[in-house]
């Protein structure tokens, strides 16, 4: 199997704050990879660095073997790699209709037959054509996140970066969005890099995962190992206890 995304000794420094320290991960084509950790552990920073949204101090990022330089990304890169953000309330333009929102990436990349593509994209994420000329404020959180997924998929990328795609959603809606993501991954043979603080969600979605803390990877596991509680780090164990929920003393 070929490596879809390779991150080698990546460091990100904001002013004097070391957000990422020498992080290396290799993600294979068609794989679903999870990043777990608490806030401030650098898991989102890693995704943002790949997307060119964080100041890389040192290290290298390769997409299908091609190195990325600096924070500038080419158009070709964005056809390969798309990102879905955490907050569906903040990531859609409030004054553009869904149609306009989905047209934007097509216009940028000069893709023709936009009409059929938009209809297909909406259909794929389970929203009918009735949603096409609505505004984001007329949709629920789950529907907005579907639009954000449709917007990412419309340029037919091969890698999808998912930054806590369901943490702003209700548990019942989360299940629907996770099912949708699994479905599209299966249909299009996508590579997922998924950030979440919820171990349950990550083990459900991903084959392998990395546990992050203070800007470094503290442990690498497969989902099966996690399910058998074969963890070596106390930190991971703490996360596991936390995900089991509250136990009365």
């Amino acid at each position, binding site marked *: 199997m070929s490596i879809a995304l390779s991150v080698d000794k990546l460091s990100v420094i904001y002013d004097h704050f070391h957000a990422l320290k020498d992080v290396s991960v290799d993600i294979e084509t068609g794989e679903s990879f999870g990043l777990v950790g*608490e806030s401030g552990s650098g898991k989102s920073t890693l995704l943002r660095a790949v997307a060119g949204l964080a100041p890389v101090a040192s290290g290298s990022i390769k997409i299908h073997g091609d190195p990325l330089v600096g924070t500038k990304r080419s158009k070709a890169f964005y056809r390969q790699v798309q990102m879905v953000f955490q907050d569906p309330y903040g990531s859609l333009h409030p004054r553009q209709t869904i149609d306009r929102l989905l047209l934007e990436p097509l216009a940028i990349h000069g893709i023709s037959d936009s009409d059929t593509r938009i209809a297909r994209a909406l259909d794929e994420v389970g929203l009918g054509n009735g949603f096409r000329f609505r505004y984001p404020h007329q949709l629920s959180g789950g529907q907005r996140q579907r639009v954000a997924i449709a917007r990412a998929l419309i340029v037919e990328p091969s890698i999808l970066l998912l930054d806590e795609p369901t943490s702003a959603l*209700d548990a019942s809606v989360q*299940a629907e969005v996770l099912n949708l993501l699994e479905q599209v991954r299966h249909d299009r043979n996508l590579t997922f890099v998924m950030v979440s603080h919820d171990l349950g969600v990550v083990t459900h979605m991903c084959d392998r995962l990395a546990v992050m803390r203070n800007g470094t990877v503290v442990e690498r596991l497969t989902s099966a190992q996690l399910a*058998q509680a074969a963890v070596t780090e106390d930190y991971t164990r703490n996360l596991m206890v936390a995900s089991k*929920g509250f136990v009365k003393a």
Partner: protein
Amino acid sequence: MTDLLTVQNLKVSYPTRTGVIEAVRGVSFTLGKERLGIVGESGSGKSQTGRAIMGLTPKHGIVSADKLDFNGIDLLATSAKQRRQLRGKRIAMVLQDPKYSLDPVMSIGRQICETLRTHEKVGKAEARDRALAMLEAVQIRDPKRVFDLYPHEVSGGMGQRAMIAMMLIADPELLIADEPTSALDVTVQLDVLRIMDRLVSERGMGLIFVSHDLRLVSSFCDRVIVMYAGKVVEELKASDLKNARHPYTQGLLNCMPQIGESRHPLPVLDRKPEWAA
């Protein structure tokens, strides 16, 4: 057991240009010195129920009930002044996100002292001492330092502890916690819950815990009310959760992915129109 709070047929509605939105449509329950969980999705009216009890429904909203009684006080007939005396002193509320619900231009210590001095006649020095003791009770390691910090200088977990300290300092009889841990990290959530758990049982207050997380609520509370579209669809003991009968409750229980489980695809809620009837 004497009832601390009796709610009968509570309704909250908001008139809008396009018609009346009924956020809560006839909720009834009683609460003693126990922990009651209210669970539902966004828009189910769970927060509106808590806010109506607290008297925080916006002015244009209409609250009506056959009975809304707190320890013999008819909450619907109280004046704004009486409400203010109740609020913070006898009924307190912990809100979801400490980032937005603490005063950003007031130090944490001053905010706690303010609550205390509004409701009790205490001197500055005593208020300070009690605030420090309270900060210690919510397991803040260095209360003296945190006392002088501003909300933006502390983490989410610390802010939420400060808010709990602020709400408990006047020794309320009823605490309403509206998603107190949803904005926090999983690891911090448990700490905050443990602190709330201990303080609530030590002080013997009634607790209404509003959340969308059914599992969390059932592990924390004695009794759970499940709300859907502004109505109570099921009320059950937390220990009886496995025997939940309503398909909505069962759906909420099943839809969370768990470690060591392989269910692809996850079961989703099949919403029936008759649930909202």
